[in-house]
């Protein structure tokens, strides 16, 4: 399975959980979860799908959550090891 497909599945799994929760929690719940546990690369990849592939395959709740998900810094911003 491609990385993209996997990522979409993971995001949708989270949305599936929040679909069963009280409505008020929905998108915020998804966004909080992703902000807490997804590394920037994964969020970047997610935004790539949202921004450039019109959210192909993503659960509508993930799309609704997107504006609440923290946009990661562009790749390359921490390209060097820390000064020791």
């Amino acid at each position, binding site marked *: 399975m491609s990385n993209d497909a996997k990522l979409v599945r*993971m995001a949708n799994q989270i949305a599936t*959980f929040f679909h069963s929760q009280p409505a008020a929690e929905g998108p915020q719940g998804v966004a909080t979860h992703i902000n807490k546990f997804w*590394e920037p690369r994964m969020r970047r990849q997610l935004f790539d799908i949202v921004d450039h592939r019109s959210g192909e395959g993503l659960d509508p709740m993930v799309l609704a959550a997107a504006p609440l998900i923290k946009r990661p810094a562009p790749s390359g911003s921490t*390209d060097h*090891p*820390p000064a*020791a």
Partner: protein
Amino acid sequence: MSLIHEIDYGTPASKSEKMVTLTIDGREVTVPEGTSIMRASMDAGIEIPKLCATDMMDAFGSCRLCLVEIQGRAGMPASCTTPVAPGLVVSTQTPRLKDVRRGVMELYISDHPLDCLTCAANGDCELQDMAGAVGLRDVRYGYEGENHVRARNDGAINIKWQPKDESNPYFTFDSSKCIVCSRCVRACEEVQGTFALTIEGRGFDSRVSAGMHEDFVSSECVSCGACVQACPTATLTEKSVIEIGQPEHSAVTTCAYCGVGCSFKAEMRGEELVRMVPWKDGQANRGHSCVKGRFAYGYSTHRDRILNPMIREKISDPWREVSWEEAFAHVASEFRRIQYQYGRDSIGGITSSRCTNEETYLVQKIVRAGFGNNNVDTCARVCHSPTGYGLGQTFGTSAGTQNFDSVEETDVVIVIGANPTDGHPVFASRLKKRLRQGAKLIVIDPRRIDLVKGPHVEASYHLPLRPGTNVAVVTALAHVIVSEGLFDETFIRERCDWSEFEDWASFVSEERHSPEAVEGLTGVPAELIRGAARLFATGGNGSIYYGLGVTEHSQGSTTVMAIANLAMATGNIGRPGVGVNPLRGQNNVQGSCDMGSFPHELPGYRHISDDATRETFEKLWGVSLSNEPGLRIPNMLDAAVEGSFKGIYIQGEDILQSDPDTKHVSAGLAAMECVVVQDLFLNETANYAHVFLPGSTFLEKDGTFTNAERRINRVRRVMTPRNGLADWEVTQKLAQAMGLAWNYRHPSEIMDEIAATTPSFALVSYDYLEKMGSVQWPCNEKHPQGSPIMHVDGFVRGKGKFIRTEYVATDEKTGPRFPLLLTTGRILSQYNVGAQTRRTDNVVWHEEDRLEIHPHDAENRGIRDGDWVRLASRSGETTLHALITDRVSPGVVYTTFHHPDTQANVITTDFSDWATNCPEYKVTAVQVSPSNGPSDWQVEYDEQARRSRRIAGKLEAAE
């Protein structure tokens, strides 16, 4: 250092709070009511001679050596079976008693060999001691008559004599030395709960027998060692003692196998380990053990252990041994090169649940402070990460709520997705003891595990659910409890958010969650669910114990929440005998989570985005920390395949064997440029490594492990690391090579840093542990004695949170091509990936992984017991031998994953828990068919593994 001698009080302690005062040999003694006179005397420092009594078991009263005289009472009662009473006046030594005791001893000795000088128990024999204590000076009866001692009587065969039984790999049974005190039989019954031994025959003819006249290894015996420890003579003796001799010093340490965390005395002669003896003051095990901790330590000196660092350019090259300096310099320059080339986030690390808290802390520290990112994870990812998430959400803390002692006060136990007799044997023994006293048991498991029906233990309910339907079953239990009004309203109103409860209650009350509605889905008859729910809600103290069968699912986190809901709804939180108890797999899986091994949190479960927490560490470490969560293990592998993750430092984990979807793991590893493996052996992951750093065993280092009950136990070094460095020293030197100014002189200094930065550990120090023995976190100003039970006066998060738990079918579905469901587990004698236990004599109990299949499914496929079968899933296929059994339901097959040749994880898929990415090990759709032998993949893998283990200048390393 000297040998630790534990006092044997002769009979167990009484739990009564009422005190009784009596006089023994002119001394006034006050003890709890129900105490035996023997124990009361010992309390006062008076040791009454005894042979058949020992404080691990109830008194039996058979040897008649412990007699006393009591003023105003006739005769000479046995002090072990006579309880104290107010005002008794007891004499333990009178001319009459002396005579009787000598007579008793004389009879014993007249049927006992007199080869004390060459006996293995010499110096550690209670018979010898008692002969001395009673002043036995001569024995008037010889061996002329009947005896059990000599093979021949005057040339004729002595039918009463039996040869030694040496079948068990770890201990011998020499019947000629047996005094038939039955301590072994009672230990097996009362302490272990296996009932493998009996006394057969009567009077002079009676003798101890394993099973039905079997030898030990063919009997029911599980080799826990309780009988060996209980035996007062050399009859049952460790083979290591026979071989080496008596130990001369010892240190208390902690088993490095499972999450029970048993305390042992490591008994030594010089730097040689003579034996491991469970420690009675160990609060997790209370003097008991299982075969792994007690006997399976031989791996530490196994010839396969790698003792020198090694490096290689390519994984197809043979290994080249190098100095430590060269290895550290090489790793440091490779990691820095990769970071310059691919970015700071292109490397990461994995902490070990087998290593100490201190070592784990250092690995996450090197990642965060040295690599400058948060790409650190631990094998708990693949086992209990949903526990952390689920209990964190509902209760506010990521850990079990009870201590193990709590089981002594429980009335109804739910065991779900766990197989304690194999996975957590000492806990299982303690549970069985409680069940024999009358507590009720509910087992929720696809397989008929041993607890469902065993000697003197039987589950009231076994719900044999289809793998993958935990949420549906637990929610149905809640449905019954709510709809029948069996919930504990007072508790809920007081401790939980009432409106959240109402929301949840209306959710679970929906008809679609009723046992009848889900019956078709779960395969569990509705009546069983109803009965179990009623029993749990109304049977008194209810406790829930669960294992990987709960967490390793795509809905693992949801099931943990469902379990927490159930406990809250029935008011079963916050006191002894109740609670939610994850049975942790590896010895320090709790500790490795506590120590900040997850990519999103710092030690003490504090999220990396929390500025105040980061600041604490930034100040102390003198670096700035990234506030972004790092990659989890499966994400690291995905990123590696995709090309943005290139280097990894893995301490004490074998992800290639233990993680699901082996092909994906190997593809990820193969795509990296610098894989550093630190371990005892060339494990499977090392096949893909460029650098190998030899590790040390728990016997070779100081530190702490934290067990499943949050207990911080000391690990004490009893021998020099054979590889030269303890694991914490290896990480420290690597950090230094990367330019970090670390300078810990002893693990205690690391613990001091943990205590200084982590509120739940604030009072923990080696000095404090020395004083307390062990403590359970949180241990701080608020809880100076530690916390045996959590959420006593309210939940850590404030109000307990009820969360709706909707069942979602896994994407892994059966169909025509893959009609069966595979689920996985472990067995008693082997441990996890088996790297250690396979290198001990434990292999006599489990030479290979086998596929359990129901007779019906086997017959349909023309499979006979023992046949080679091919096991295939959407991910891959492997072969193994079939074991036909009705322990599994039709439609379900089961295997263990202890042997690398089996490659069970070639079969498992990359589906995972929605919240934590914990892989879905426990459900895979498979097909089973007859086969002729190993699959191509197995042959290929074997060949690749063999080649990658070559070391330049050495004969091929044997696996």
